[in-house]
Structure formats: C-alpha cells, structure tokens
C-alpha cells in the first residue's frame, strides 16, 4: 500500500468505535485471567487506531525476531549481506553475561531443518525464513551473530523505530534471562515496524515485500488468524514463553485495505487460554472494523 492510498479521516469519526473496542478488550482481558494485555491497531482502510496499554513493556519472546529480520534486511540493503550469502550453522553462542558459551536446544525449534545443517552452511534468506515461519531460535542466533545486536539497534534508530523495541541479546540466553537481561517490546513498538513494512517503506518497496513474504509464511496460526475468515491472509510473528504470549501481524482481507494488529499478553505460568484470548481479541477487532459478524 502506498502513502497516496492511505485514507485521511477525521479523528473524531472513529472515536466512538475506538471507545467501544477499548471496553470490549477490557472485558476480554478481565475474563481471560491474563496479568496484562496490550493491543495496538492501525487500520489503513478506516484510519482507526487503537492503543490499549500499548506503551507497556513486555518480554519480547520471539516477536523480537521481527526487528532482527529488519536488521538482516538492513544489512542486505547496505550490501553487507546478500540473500544468498552463506552462514556457517554452528550451535554455539556467547551469553551477554560474561561471554559464557551456550547452545540452543534442538527441541525448541519447530522443525529440525536448521539443526540438521550443523557444521554446514545455510543461506541468509533460508535462515530468515526459518527464524520467522517456524520461529527457529538457532536461525535467529546465527543471523544475530552475523549482523550483531548493535547493527539492529542502529537500524531501528535510523528508521526512528527504536521507541518500543529494546534488543539486548539473542534468544535462549538463559544466563541473561536469570539476570533479567531480556529483549523487551511494546505493542506500539512492534506496530510501527509492521506499519512500515506494510507501507513498503522499510528500505525499499521490494525489500519490504520480501520481509512481508517471509511473515506470510508463518506456520503458527493459533493467534491472530485463528478466528478470521478463511479468505484472510495474515503476515505475522508469534512469541511465547512461560509468562507471555504475543502475536503481531498485518491482516489482509478481500476488498479492503489491510490493518496492523499487535496483541501482547502476560500470564502466570500455569494459566491457560493464551492463544484463545489473542484469537478472541483479533476476532473482536475484525468484527469492529468490518462491522459485520464473521458468518455474514
């Protein structure tokens, strides 16, 4: 979508709907048992924006892979990397705590594709694909080791996306976790990145499209897409650890411009219903934006 296509709306026009949505999300939050929920929304069709608790910081879990994807494509844009540049697949990383080596557990990746390549090489674009679509932690740490966290943070600053994203380290750095050195995000922070991608403004329309294509390949669809119509296409990234469950994506529906939705949530470790809650919020927003129940 281009800047020209973006609708210009009177802010007061969407205020009643925004208020109703806020109340509905409050109700869902209370019923869910979550410790906290944050929602950020931007609809390119109606111009409606929603910011519910959206400046609250959450442990990023795997949603941090979206800023890392941006950092990888920044390196491609600079010419430091090519999509087909090869990266040595090695399961050994250094913790930000005293540089102590650690490994990524193979059982935590959804498939074994990257782990099976240990000792060999994989292309940057393959690793980026696995990092997003199956949330491969090994692929994530390999890419971050090549480009460096500082480079990602510099990219975020250059794109004025640093507010709401705090990248400190790779994933599965348990020593850092124990010392509460974590990657953190806000719903607004992730929203801004996804808006930029959806608008084709991250580096170039072509590179933005390539990142969106990767996000469209997401294989974990229990959150935002779960209760949307079959025709919906969602480019998104989930994130889940024992205490948080997130989903952040761009929702494409037939005959309307897309909307960007970020749902972050924090939970006690023994509370269930996380994906269901995210799916319910997504469904509620879908109905509010399209002003029709899904079965119409």
């Amino acid at each position, binding site marked *: 979508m281009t800047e020209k296509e973006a609708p210009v709306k009177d802010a007061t026009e969407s205020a009643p709907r925004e208020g109703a949505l806020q109340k509905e999300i409050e109700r869902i939050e209370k019923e869910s048992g979550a410790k906290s929920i944050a929602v950020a929304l931007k609809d390119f069709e109606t111009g409606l924006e929603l910011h519910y608790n959206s400046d609250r910081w959450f442990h990023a879990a795997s949603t941090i892979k979206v800023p890392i994807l941006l950092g990888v494509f920044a390196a491609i844009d600079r010419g430091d*990397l090519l999509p087909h*540049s090869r*990266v040595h697949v090695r*399961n*050994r990383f250094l913790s930000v705590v005293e540089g102590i*080596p650690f490994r990524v557990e193979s059982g935590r990746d959804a498939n074994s594709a990257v782990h099976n390549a*240990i*000792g060999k090489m994989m292309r940057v674009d393959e690793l980026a694909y696995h990092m997003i679509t199956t949330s491969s932690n090994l692929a994530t740490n390999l890419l971050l080791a090549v480009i460096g966290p500082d480079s990602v943070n510099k990219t975020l600053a250059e794109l004025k996306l640093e507010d709401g994203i705090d990248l400190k380290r790779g994933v599965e750095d348990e020593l850092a976790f124990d010392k509460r050195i974590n990657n953190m995000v806000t719903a607004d922070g992730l929203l801004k990145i996804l808006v930029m991608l959806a608008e084709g403004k991250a580096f170039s329309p072509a590179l933005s499209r390539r990142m969106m294509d990767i996000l469209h390949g997401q294989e974990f669809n229990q959150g935002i897409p779960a209760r949307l119509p079959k025709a919906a296409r969602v480019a998104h990234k989930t994130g889940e650890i024992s205490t948080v469950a997130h989903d952040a994506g761009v929702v494409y529906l037939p005959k309307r411009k897309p909307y960007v939705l970020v749902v972050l949530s924090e939970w006690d470790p023994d509370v269930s219903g996380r994906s269901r809650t995210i799916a319910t919020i997504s469904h509620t927003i879908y109905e509010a934006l399209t002003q029709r129940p899904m079965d119409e």
Partner: protein
Amino acid sequence: MNNSPNFPLRVVDGLTLPADYRKALRPGEEWKDANGFPRQLPRYFYEVPSWDSAMKVELATHFLLWEFIQVDVREAPPLRTFPRYVPCAITLLAVCLERFREAVGTLVHISANGGYRSPSHRFSKNATPHAWGTAANIYRIGDTYLDNRSAIERFSLIARETLPGIWTRPYGTPTGYAEDHLHLDLGYVLSVPRDVKS
C-alpha cells in the same frame, strides 16, 4: 608447476596477486599467534578457478578440495568468489585426514569455516593454522556428532595416536578449547613448491 598426475591446480606466488587479494591473504607477512609469537603466513597458493574444479580435485582418496574451502560471510569478500587461493600445505593436511579416516573407518566431515580460512576471516583474531591450510575442524565422524566431551576426547586420542606431531584442541569452553568440534592441526607449516623462486 607440479608434476602430479590428475592435479590440475596452478601454483601462484601470493605477492603477484592483485592488491585486494594481497590485502586479504597477506602473503609472507608475519602474524602473531595468541601467545604473541610471530608466525610467517604462506606465500604460495594453489589457484582454484571454479567451484566445479574444487568439486573435482582430489587432495586425497576420500577428500576433495571443496571440503577444505567452505567459508561463510565472515570471509573477506574477494576470497568468497573464484578464483580462490589455498595455501600449498593443504595437501599435507589432506593426507593426514586420509590417514585419520582410515583409523576411524568412516566418513570425516570438515565443518564450514573449518578448513582453510584467510587471516582476514572474521574468526581469525590471532595467527591460526587454519590460515596456513593446516588445520581442520571436524564436526561429525560417521554418524557421531562431535559436540560432547566423550566423542571429542575419543577421536582426539585416535588422531594423536595415528598422526605423529598432530595437535588437537582440548575439550572445554574457554578460549583455546573446543566443545562442539574436534580441532586438529599440523602447526604453522609453510609449503614451498620446489620449482618456485622463493
């Protein structure tokens, strides 16, 4: 410049290469190791014209040249494309690995970045025999991944018993140790083919 049958690679004097290659390869220069001792880098290289040739050239019965020159994005850009240059001592390493393969009785896999890598490779902080073409990082032998103490120490012992003078990195996590591969090397060996002007 060599008279071995079936060995088509040309020997080149690194000092005659274009400037970007000389900058990355640093032929004949001194480079300090981790203990501060100066080591002289290789000056003579085999020129590998293409990936196709790397896939065909046998350095030993069970080792083809390509296995020794797999490098990733951390290698200096001129050295990631062909023609590539590999120190002449690589043939000595291949013969040693062939002997090692006989001893273990199965496939020996050299890891990416684990054969020859230049002094400009981002992994190369101090002089390492990898930049002499005389070191190999082995991540798998047959079906055994060398990612634990038992496997690394078992195959390290076989290497030391089989190859007189070989050095293997001890198991462990500190600098100078290895915990996810077997590193073996012949030291800082310089190979000067007999018909070059040194």
